[in-house]
Structures are given as structure tokens and as C-alpha cells.
């Protein structure tokens, strides 16, 4: 089943009356449970694309379909309501609410969606436990390491069991050890059936995905599925997987 579909999606910024095309006619189809990495050099339009998919930025033309519903024509408020239920965001700079504790940060989306406090707390406890952050629940974000902050951000993004998780360079600001932790978590989430669209310029991160879409100057230049067998036990394929 298709979770996300874009038809000839275009974004043109106006820079002092000079049109600057950022995304030029992207057709993308993401199926349920798929993990898509969008790769490309800086300025290729990948972040813009991701923002449009989440309704943070308005498209200039084209269509966006989310869960079978047309989304590009929605108003700002309707997008907000849609995001609440169906989309989780992870950003490069984590963007935790500085004045709130870790626990509150994670509960916030659930409360926003109208879940009862009890349920929100249960969900938060489950998520923090899954991301091994339980003992940091009452800490302020500033007291956490970058990797921990990004794990909290991930927990927050997953709080409402969104249909689609959008991640914008989630490891762009982390050292290699924390990058490994966050990527491990992302693959675990993916294994549980979460649909993910991730933007990165790091090939190692992209290699985790089922499918890599390469973007250059706002256009898809390559869309390749990574043929991957499930890691067998002692199979010959393991040699190939170990890149």
C-alpha cells in the first residue's frame, strides 16, 4: 500500500524577484514499511523536498498524497492536524523544547493529539525504555549528549505512531559513535514496520535504507532499490553486506 506519493512536485523560491528552483518535478512513491534515503549534495533540494512532504514548506506546484489523501491543497492548520496524527519529524539539530524535560518533550505530541495523560505517559515510558533513556526522563535537554538528544527527538517523533517518519540529516550533528546508535535505532524502528523517508548526504547512512533516491539540482537522477537479503546465518551474502 502506498503511504506517500508525489506528482511532479515543484518548489521555486523567489529571491528578490529572481525565481530559484529548488525542486523541479519530483515523482516519488513510497510504500508502507519502506525505508527511503534521499541523497544528494548540498543545495540539491533534498531538505526542501522533505519539508514539503511534511507540510513545513508549501509546494509551488504538483501534488502530494499522504495515506491516500491529497495533502498539498491543505491549509496550514489542516497540515498541522495531519502532522499531528501521521507524520513524525526528526531534525539535524534535535530541536527539543529547551524548557521542558525529556519526558515532557516525548509526551507533548501525544497530548497534542488528544490522547489521555495516562496513555501518553504509558507511551512515553515505553518509548524511552525502548531507546534506553528511562533514567534521563526528568533531565533537561541541555544536560544530554547530542546522541541522547537525538534519541529523545526520535522518541518524540514516534510518540503518535505516525504513518510516516521524516528525518532530516538526523546524524549530521553527531559523532560516529552516536551516529551508530541512532542509525541502529532507525533500523530497529524500520524493522517494526515504520515507513521512513530520510535525507542525508552521507552514503553510509543511506546504505541502511531499502532504497536510495539521488537528487541533483532538484531532480531525481537515480532511484535504486538496494537488493538486500535478510542477513542469513553464515551465508555468503554477509561478505557483500559488510561494506
Amino acid at each position, binding site marked *: 500500500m502506498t503511504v506517500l506519493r508525489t506528482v511532479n512536485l515543484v518548489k521555486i523560491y523567489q529571491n528578490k524577484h529572481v525565481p530559484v528552483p529548488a525542486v523541479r518535478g519530483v515523482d516519488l512513491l513510497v510504500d508502507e514499511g519502506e525505508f527511503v534515503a534521499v541523497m544528494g549534495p548540498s543545495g540539491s533540494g533534498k531538505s526542501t523536498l522533505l*519539508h514539503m512532504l511534511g507540510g*513545513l514548506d508549501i509546494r509551488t506546484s504538483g501534488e502530494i498524497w499522504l495515506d491516500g489523501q491529497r495533502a498539498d491543497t491543505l491549509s496550514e492548520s489542516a497540515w*498541522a492536524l495531519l502532522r499531528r496524527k501521521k507524520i513524525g519529524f526528526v531534525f539535524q539539530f534535535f530541536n527539543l*523544547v529547551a524548557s521542558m524535560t525529556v519526558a*515532557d518533550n516525548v509526551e507533548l505530541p501525544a497530548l*497534542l493529539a488528544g490522547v489521555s495523560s495516562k496513555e501518553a505517559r504509558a507511551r512515553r515510558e515505553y518509548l524511552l525504555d525502548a531507546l534506553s533513556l528511562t533514567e534521563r526522563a526528568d533531565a533537561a535537554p541541555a544536560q544530554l549528549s547530542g546522541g541522547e538528544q537525538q534519541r529523545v527527538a526520535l522518541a518524540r517523533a514516534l510518540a503518535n505512531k505516525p504513518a510516516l517518519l521524516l528525518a532530516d540529516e538526523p546524524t549530521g550533528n553527531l559523532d560516529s559513535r552516536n551516529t551508530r546508535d541512532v542509525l541502529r535505532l532507525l533500523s530497529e524502528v524500520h524493522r517494526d514496520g515504520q515507513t521512513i523517508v530520510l535525507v542525508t548526504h552521507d552514503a553510509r547512512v543511506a546504505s541502511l535504507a531499502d532504497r536510495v533516491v539521488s537528487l541533483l539540482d532538484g531532480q531525481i537522477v537515480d532511484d535504486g532499490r538496494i537488493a538486500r537479503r535478510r542477513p542469513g546465518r553464515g551465508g555468503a551474502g554477509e561478505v557483500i553486506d559488510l561494506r
Partner: protein
Amino acid sequence: MRAGARWIRADLRARRGQAVLTVATIAAIVAALITAATLLEDSTNPWRGLFSQTNGAHLWVHTKDRPQVVALREIDGVTQAAGPYRTAPVTLLEEGRKAPAALRAMPVTPPEVARPVVAEGGWLTSSQPDGAVVERSFARALGLGVGSPVNVTALSGARHVLYVRGIADSADQGFYPEWTPGLIWVLPEKLDRIEPELGRSEWVTGLRLADPESTQFVSQRVVVMLDEEVQRVYTWREVRDAMELDNRLLGTLLALFGIVGLVAAALALANAAGGRVLAQLRDLATLKSMGFTRGQVAGLLLVEHGALGLLGIALGVLPGWLVTWLVLDRTAVALVPLVAITAGTALVVLVAVGLPAWRGSRTPPIPAAPSAPPRGHLSRLAKLALLVRLPPALVLGARDAFSRRVPAFLTTFGLAVPMMMITIGLGVWATLDNFLAHPEQVGQHAQLLVRPVKLTPEEAKRAAQLDPGVREVYPGADVDALVPGVARSIRVRAIGGSGAPYPFPVAEGRMYADRGEAVAGQGLLDLLKVKIGDRVWLSVGGTPLIVRIVGRTVEPDLDGQVLSLGVDSLAAKDVVPPEFWGLALKKGADPADVRDRLLTASGEGLEIQRVVNPAERLSIIRAVIVALIVVLALIGLANLLTASALGLRDHALDLAVLKAMGLTPRQVMATLVTGTGVLVVLGVVLGTAAGSFVVTSLIDLQGHTSGVGAGIGRPPSALTLTVAVTAAVGAALAVALLPARRAARAQLGTYGFSANQ
């Protein structure tokens, strides 16, 4: 919205100090406004309340003999009459002080019109023939309570003791000591015993009218009908004006401070909320990316910042009410102004936080990039400053100060407004000081008034002239005069002669120089609707008097409704011998010493009265000024904290750069402090300049409306202003220093700004 509530709670917890300051500022402003409104409202209300309570009379007539009340009652417009009551002047002796009083005879059953309302104790009864009921303000001034003995001395010199049976409210006359003599009611038989001589007493009759507006018409009819019998006529308007004398000035001052303070508080609130929103743009964007709608974000901000304001209002109403109740001793705060102030302040608060809330809600939901401050560049002036080797911290700080125009303006303006009000407050203070230091400038050249008691007037004059502290002795008399077309008597003060004129402080025109010339206070010019150069026709005790007003004096007494002239302008019967001698003292002579010496020299044969300086009466204003300065300083502080928080936030990114450039932590701190300091100095200097510019005219305007007349306003001294400016700037810099110090020493995060501000 539970999500929103949780966010608000977390945000408030993160900036507790700022929130408390905001609440305190609003609370202080509201308390000041309520106090002001009560004072203003009260300035008319005590009369209104008392008048309806006592079923008061609109017109009071003092006559030599018992008038024909039936005839008076038949005048068109008169519905009822009170009296006539016999009244006799006596002197009260309380703890060495003498107080003039009028004993008014009243029956055991209080009358229907102008009925004194007993507040404490009871009304006169025949079972206690030496009982007396004292008017409340008089009793309070003399410290009399129910059961206190009262020593009265009649004109004959005979002493009697009365016992206070009750204390009553009355709208028959103004409050003591603004209105003298004080009022005491006794039984008619007692009055006959104290003052058997009919010639030394008067008859007082009150008339209640169907329409208060017909007072003038009725009063003229009464004057015509009773003709020479009339000693004095006054109306409800005069009583009302007398009751509002002091509070009006105070109330106006407080209202002025309150309203400007409200504007300043609105600025401070807008600045604080705006600064906070700017600091939170990233958080707000995050909230939107999570699914908060624009309306929800706006609502969130409005609720958070608005709630602080509303809490401030709630907290301000209570102390405001308490202050009016405890300090001013008013039992009821009028509901309408209370509601108006609460609603008005709430509206101001919501408008002040509405704009930043709206702006915050417009944040694009992409939180990736921290909001970058507008980049300034070194102006030619700054480059020049660096070239001539001014400290780089100063140059950089000064440049930074204006990189955000609107907050820079809000900060400067937000400091300038309180500073302007403080300057005005200091100007009022200086004016009061000037009253005290130079009483001759407010018409109190003569500081002692001497009335002969046992001596002849000539002996009294000689005794006064012999005293080493006395410079000049002026003959004087106060008489009441009737003016055609004016419903009541006016005060004519004859003092000095056209040969040796009393040095009235003439603000406009010139001093009287001849018989038939007079000077008048602003209040009288307004009352008679005349201007300098006009002729006025008066009747003093039945004798016609025509004077030309040649000048305007500064006149603090009786709302400025006083006509002053030389004794030789009046008929001899009114001023020979003079009623009193006005003593102008030599420089440095203490009035109390001179008074004691004269009393000893004359063997207590003189009654010597010290002229009360209006500044002494207005001394509560000083307390008000101090309180207001505290409130205003609070507002300034709130603004300053916002400015320095915003400055730090904007420059957090620069800090790393500055350090990388080789600035020491001390220099970094200096840069930050300079950034705030430039705005502080600008605001403080602008405010002080504006304040000193308007203060004189403002006080003169107030003087004009209160009848004293223009020409009393004094700007604060240069020294006072310097101290005030230094204190304000110093305090501001000290406040800015702490966060700057912390920021300069802090280790910077990897990407140049700390997430937790």
C-alpha cells in the same frame, strides 16, 4: 489544551524571575491606578455621599439677627429650610493648641434638612446638658473621641468645659482645617450660657432647593431680601470644592503617574513578551512541526503572557484596595472606576502581548536554522572610533545596540518614559521644597499673624516691631464680600497699604499701587470670569467697593479665590483697627522662636498664628512620589532585563567569534554591557530631558486648574538630576553586568549558541 498547558508551565518555570517581575510591575501599576481613582473619585464623593446622607442644604446664610424663615421658604425653588440656628465663635484649647470653632445650637431632635449623621456615640440629649457633638474632621484633627472633655473659651474670655457625646458627619461645611472654624453642636440652652451676648453670635439658616442649579438665583434673592442682615452666604459648590481641596491635586498626580505608568508597563510587557517570543522562535517552529496550528501557537503565547498580566492585575487590585482603605481611611472603593481600571488594564495587557503572540504564530514551521540577528556593519563612525583607538569593546557594543531597531527603540523608549515620570516627580518635590524655602513666593511673606487679645492693636504692633526677628509689620483684615452674579461670598484679604504694599508674589500684571486697585488669585479670576485690568463691583458688609484688578498673584489658599488689596482700599469700619498684624520675619529668624518671644513679651496678650505652608499640607505627596519612583524603577528594570536577555541571545553567536578574535572575557563582557548601556544612557538622558522640559509647565497647568495659578513650578535642581541619572544608569549597568559576566565566561556549545537561554 493539555499540551499547551504543559509547554506554558515549563516555559514559566524556565524564566521565573522575569515572570515575577512582570507580575509585580503590573500589580504595582494597577494598585497605583486604583489609589489614584479612589482619590479622584473621593475628591467629589465625600460631599456627594454626605450631602445625600444628611439631606443637606444647598445654600447657607449667616445673618446678624434671626431671619424670617417663612419668607425665605417662600422664595421660588426653596423646598425646605434648616434652622435658623444660633451660632457663636469660641476658641478650643487642646494640648496647648488653639483651634477656632463655631458652637451651633441644635435641638434634641435632629432636623430633617442638613441633619448631622452621628458616626460615633450619640446625639445631644437633655439629660446631658454639657454634651457636645463634634464634626468628624474637626474631632479627628484635634484628637477628640467620645467622652473627651473640650475646653472652650468664649469671646468674653469665659472658659467652659463640654464633653464629647458624639461625633457626626455633616455636609454643612468643608472639612477642618481647610474650612475653619470647626463645627460643634450643642443644645440651645448650653449655647445661651456660654455666649449670653446676642451681639456676639450669628444666625445660620440652610435652604434646600428643588434644583441645585438654581442656587445662584436663590442666593441673589436671599441677599436682596435680607440686605444688610447678611453676613455671609455660601453654597454647596463651595463646600464641595473645599472637601476636594487636597485630594484633587494628589489624585491628579497619581492618575498622571498611573496612566503614563500604564503606557510604560504596556511597553515593558510588549517588550518582554516580544523578546521572549524572539528567543523562542526555534521552539515555536518545533511546536508547529509537531502539529501545533498557527492559532494554537498564538493562543499559547497570548495565554502565557496575558496570564502574567492578568495575575498582576488581580494582585494589584487587592493592595490597591488595601491602600485606599488603610492609608486613606476610605471604607468603600467605588465600583465603577475599579471595574474600569481592571478592564482597561486587562485590555492594555492583551493588546501589548497580542502583537508578539501574533508574530510568534507566523513563524515558519521549519526550525532548522536558529534565527539569526540582522547583521550590522561597522559604520563610518565606528571605524573612526577604532582608528582613534577607542576600546574595541565600546565600539562593538555600540554597534550591536542598534542592530535590532524595534527592540532598541522599545528599550530606549521604555526607559525614557519612566525616567521622564521620575523627573516630573522630582520636579514636584522641588516645587514643594521651594514652597518651604521661599514662602514669600506663594504669598506667605508674613509667616506669623498676630491678633491682639488683651492688648490694643497699637500695642500689639509696637510689641511686634520691637522683636529682633521681625522685619516688617503689615496691618491686615480678612473680610467676606458679596459679588453680584456670584452665588456666594468671596474672601477679600486686605493687608499692607498702597503706601507700603504687602509684597504679594505677582505672577502677571503688577502689584496694586493705589487705593481701589487689587490683585487676585487665578481661582478668583476664573470664578468671576474677569481678567487683569477689569473692574469688579463688590459689597463688603453692605458697603459698596469697586476695585480694578491690576495683577494676578500666586494664591495657595481657598482654591485661589481670594482678592488681595491694601487696607486703605476698604472702608475704615472694616479695617480700623486692623483685625491682625502680618509679621514678615528677617532672614533666618525661626517663626516658632519669634512666636514664643512675642507671647512672653506680651504676657500672653496676643494670639499668634503660624501660617501653614501649603507644602506641609501636601507632604503626603512626597510619600506618593517615593512610591511611584519605586514602581517606575520596577518598570525600567523589567525593560532592561528584556533588553539584556535579547542582547545576549543575539550575540551568543558572536561571542565565540569575539573570543576567537582575541578579546578577553572581560572585553567580551564590556562589549555586551556596552550594547545595553548605550540604550540605557540614551533612554535615561532622553527621559530626563523630556521630563525637565515639561515639568514646569505641567505643574503650572495643575496650578492653574487648582486655582493657585501658574508660576509655582520648579524643575528639579541640576544636582538632583545628575544624581538621578547617575543612579539610573549605574543601577542599569549593574543589572546588565551579571548576565553579561555569566555569558562571557560560559563555555560555548559546538555550534555557537546555547539551546537553553
